[in-house]
C-alpha cells in the first residue's frame, strides 16, 4: 500500500469523523476536532518560523552580526532587535506578574493598524464609493441605465439615512429610512443566497473527495 493510498484513507476517516457530528456528538468527532486544533496550531508555528521568523528577523540579525565580526562596524540591521524586543514582550503575556508589558506590543500593533486603515478605508470604502454613487439620474435614450443609476443613487442614499440614528426615524426621514431598509434586505437576501452557494460548494468538494479519491466510484 503506497503512502498516497494510506494518506487518502486517513483523510477519508477523519472526514467521516467530522461528519459523524451530524448524527450526534461522539468521541470519534471529538478526536477529529482535537486533532484539527493541534495540527492547525503546529502548521502555523512551522510556517511562521520558516517564512517569517528566519528570513525577516534571524537573517537580518545574522547580517549585522557578520558585519560586526568581519568588518567591525555596526550595521543598521541591528534595529530589528527593537522589533524582536516588542515581540518578546508579547510572549510575556503568558507570565501573570509581568504580562502587562505585552500591552506595549499590542499598542504598537493597534497604532499601526489604526494609522494604516484611517487613510485606506476613507479613500477606498468612503470617498471612492461616494464618487461611484454620483451617477447621472437621466441617461437619454437608455432606459435601463437610467433606472439602474436611479436605483444605485436612491438605494445608497436611503441606506445611509437608515444608519443615521441621531435623528428619530419619523415623517419623511422615517419614510426614506424604510426604503433604505428594503435595499438592505435585498442585500442581505443576496448575501444569504450566496452564502448557501458557498457552503454547498464546500460540501460538494468533500463528497467528491470521498467518492473520487477514496472510494474511486467516480472517475
Amino acid at each position, binding site marked *: 500500500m503506497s503512502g498516497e493510498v494510506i494518506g487518502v484513507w486517513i483523510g477519508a476517516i477523519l472526514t467521516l469523523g467530522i461528519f459523524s457530528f451530524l448524527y450526534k456528538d461522539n468521541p470519534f468527532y471529538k478526536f477529529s476536532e482535537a486533532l484539527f486544533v*493541534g495540527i492547525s496550531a503546529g*502548521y502555523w508555528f512551522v510556517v511562521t518560523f520558516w517564512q517569517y521568523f528566519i528570513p525577516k528577523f534571524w537573517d537580518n540579525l545574522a547580517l549585522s552580526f557578520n558585519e560586526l565580526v568581519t568588518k567591525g562596524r555596526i550595521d543598521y540591521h541591528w534595529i530589528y532587535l527593537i522589533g524582536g524586543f516588542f515581540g518578546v514582550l508579547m510572549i510575556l503575556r503568558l507570565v501573570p506578574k509581568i504580562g502587562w508589558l505585552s500591552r*506595549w506590543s499590542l499598542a504598537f500593533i493597534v497604532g499601526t493598524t489604526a494609522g494604516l486603515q484611517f487613510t485606506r*478605508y476613507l479613500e477606498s470604502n468612503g470617498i471612492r464609493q461616494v464618487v461611484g454613487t454620483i451617477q447621472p439620474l437621466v441617461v437619454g435614450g437608455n432606459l435601463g441605465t437610467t433606472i439602474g443609476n436611479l436605483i444605485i443613487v436612491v*438605494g445608497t442614499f436611503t441606506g445611509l439615512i437608515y444608519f443615521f440614528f441621531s435623528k428619530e426615524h419619523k415623517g419623511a426621514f422615517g419614510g426614506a429610512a424604510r426604503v433604505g431598509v*428594503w435595499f438592505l434586505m435585498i*442585500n442581505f*437576501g443576496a448575501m444569504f443566497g*450566496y452564502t448557501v452557494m458557498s457552503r454547498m460548494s464546500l460540501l460538494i468538494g468533500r463528497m467528491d473527495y470521498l467518492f473520487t479519491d477514496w472510494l474511486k466510484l467516480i472517475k
Partner: protein
Amino acid sequence: MRREVPLILTAIVGITMIIAHFIPPFNILKNLFEDWFFIIAAFAIYLGILNLIRVNADKLYKKQHDWPFGLVVILGFLLITIIGLFFSGGRSFQDPGTPFYYLYMHLYYPLSATMFALLAFFVASASYRAFRARNIEATMLLLAAFILMVGRVPIGYWFSDWLGDALGKSADWIMDFPQTAGQRAIMIGIALGVVSSALRVILGLERTYTGGE
C-alpha cells in the same frame, strides 16, 4: 507607565502612519514601523499557540473533563511541528514530496475543509426552520435570496430559458443594482466607523486595549 506608555506608543505610530501618506520622507519611519509590525505579528501567533498548548497541558495534568482530547491536541501539534522544523528540508518545507506536505494534504486539508463543509447542513436546517416571510422586509429578503439561489445555478436557466433566461438575468440585475446600492451604504457606514475608531485610538480616547489595571 502601564497605561501611559501604550497610549503614547499608539499615538506616535498611528500619526506617523497617517502623515507618511501625505509627506513621503516619513515613509522611512513608516517602513521601519511596518517591519517591526511583521515581527510582532509573528510573535503574536506564537503567543496564541503557546497559550493553546498551555491550556491543553493544564487540562491533561489536572485530568479535567475530556482530558484525553487535550493529549490529542498536544500530540497533533508536536507531530507536525517536529516534522516541519526538522525533517522537511528547511525553507522548502512546503514543497510537494516533503513529509510536511504529506501531513498538510492528508491531515490538515481534510480536517479543515470538512469543518467548513459542515456549515452546509446547518444552513439548510436553519433555512427550513427559521426563514419565514413574516413581514414586507422579510419577504423582500426571502425573494432576493430565492431569485439568487435559483438564478445563479443552471436550474434557473432550465426554468426560464423560454423567457430568455429571465431568472438568471434577474439575479444578475439584482446583484448589479439594488444589492450594490445596499452593500455600498453598509460600506460607507463602516468606513466612517473605522475612521472615527482609528482617530479615537490614536488620540487616546479609546483605551480598552490597554487593559483594566
